[in-house]
């Protein structure tokens, strides 16, 4: 029987990481990976232009020792976006775009059409 996280995940989309990940995906990662991903979500530098492994090592409190291998694996599996060329590759979290949909939109669309029929 699916648990609450499975049901929430089903609401947010499939498990294919190629289009990015959601915080629920991150919540299910092993501890070291989860800590890095959450830290990168919360860090100003990492969210903007991305962060190099060297800077991540300097800034992240008690970063895991095998951070290089973890980052490379996360990037390879689509959890992180790689920007620039080695050795200055920067990484940022590959957050999945919020998908549009008929739910909710349908009602608002009808209301919009009724209020502004010429738009």
């Amino acid at each position, binding site marked *: 029987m699916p648990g609450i996280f499975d049901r929430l995940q089903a609401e947010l989309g499939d498990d294919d990481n190629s289009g*990015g990940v959601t915080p*629920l995906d991150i919540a*299910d990662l092993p501890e070291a990976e989860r800590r890095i991903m959450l830290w990168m979500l919360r860090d100003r530098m990492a969210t903007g232009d991305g962060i190099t492994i060297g800077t991540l090592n300097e800034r992240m409190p008690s970063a895991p020792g095998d951070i290089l291998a973890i980052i490379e694996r996360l990037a390879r599996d689509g959890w992180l976006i790689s920007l620039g060329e080695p050795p200055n590759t920067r990484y940022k979290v590959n957050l999945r775009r*919020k998908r*549009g949909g008929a739910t909710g939109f349908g009602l*608002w669309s009808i209301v*919009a059409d009724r209020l502004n029929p010429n738009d």
Partner: protein
Amino acid sequence: MSRIISVHSFRGGTGKSNTTANLATLLAMDGYRVGVIDTDIQSPGIHVLFGLHEEDMKYSLNDYLWGKCEIQDTAHDITKNLGSTVSGQVLVIPKGQVFLIPSSIKVGEIARVLREGYDVGLLNDGFHDLVEKLELDVLMIDTHPGLNEETLLSISISDALIIVMRPDQQDYQGTGVTVEVARKLDVPRMYLLVNKAPTILDFADVKAKAEEIYNCEVAAVLPHSDEMMALASNGVFVAQFPEHPITIKLRNLARKLME
């Protein structure tokens, strides 16, 4: 050091936006620079409490998400709307400032964002940019009820999460889900706020039971308030009732959040 605080509830109607507006106002009264961002894109409402009208919204969060402006362009300084007056006497003038980042209240724009979706990464950049560009002490995120992308993101990046609930069986179940998700996202500090409690209840008992069920601190149990109902979102409660018992409890919570 700046902080990001999310105010969330699993169900609607718990008083989440009122709580956000009240805490933001109390923090400004204590001298902090506070940003409030309305991420309830499909049912925005907190702008009403702050007295921001549609015609005064040059840009909204939607404009930022569509690339029409920078996130700081969407910030409206609504501090002046928080100075309450009674019989012509100004009671409260915040020492700090409150900036509101509203979601669009134009029906067509709400429909568009629901139809097209948006870049969640850009929203995260926007949260961090706001803190930096506006030199905020606190960014408060007013979320959509339930758990969706923007809610999960705001919980993930928060230094503190306040979960607002009513003493109601439906709220009890939904709150459990939110608490479980927040724990998996390693939120550093999490508080429950039991709101709109009938005054016939034993508040100490409500607090003890909620803390036992969720293994989470209940920061306050607030009674149903006729004064707040009568205010009918026509202003921020703590600015209108600065010495009310509810205001005092919320002030304690605001100060706890800044410890």
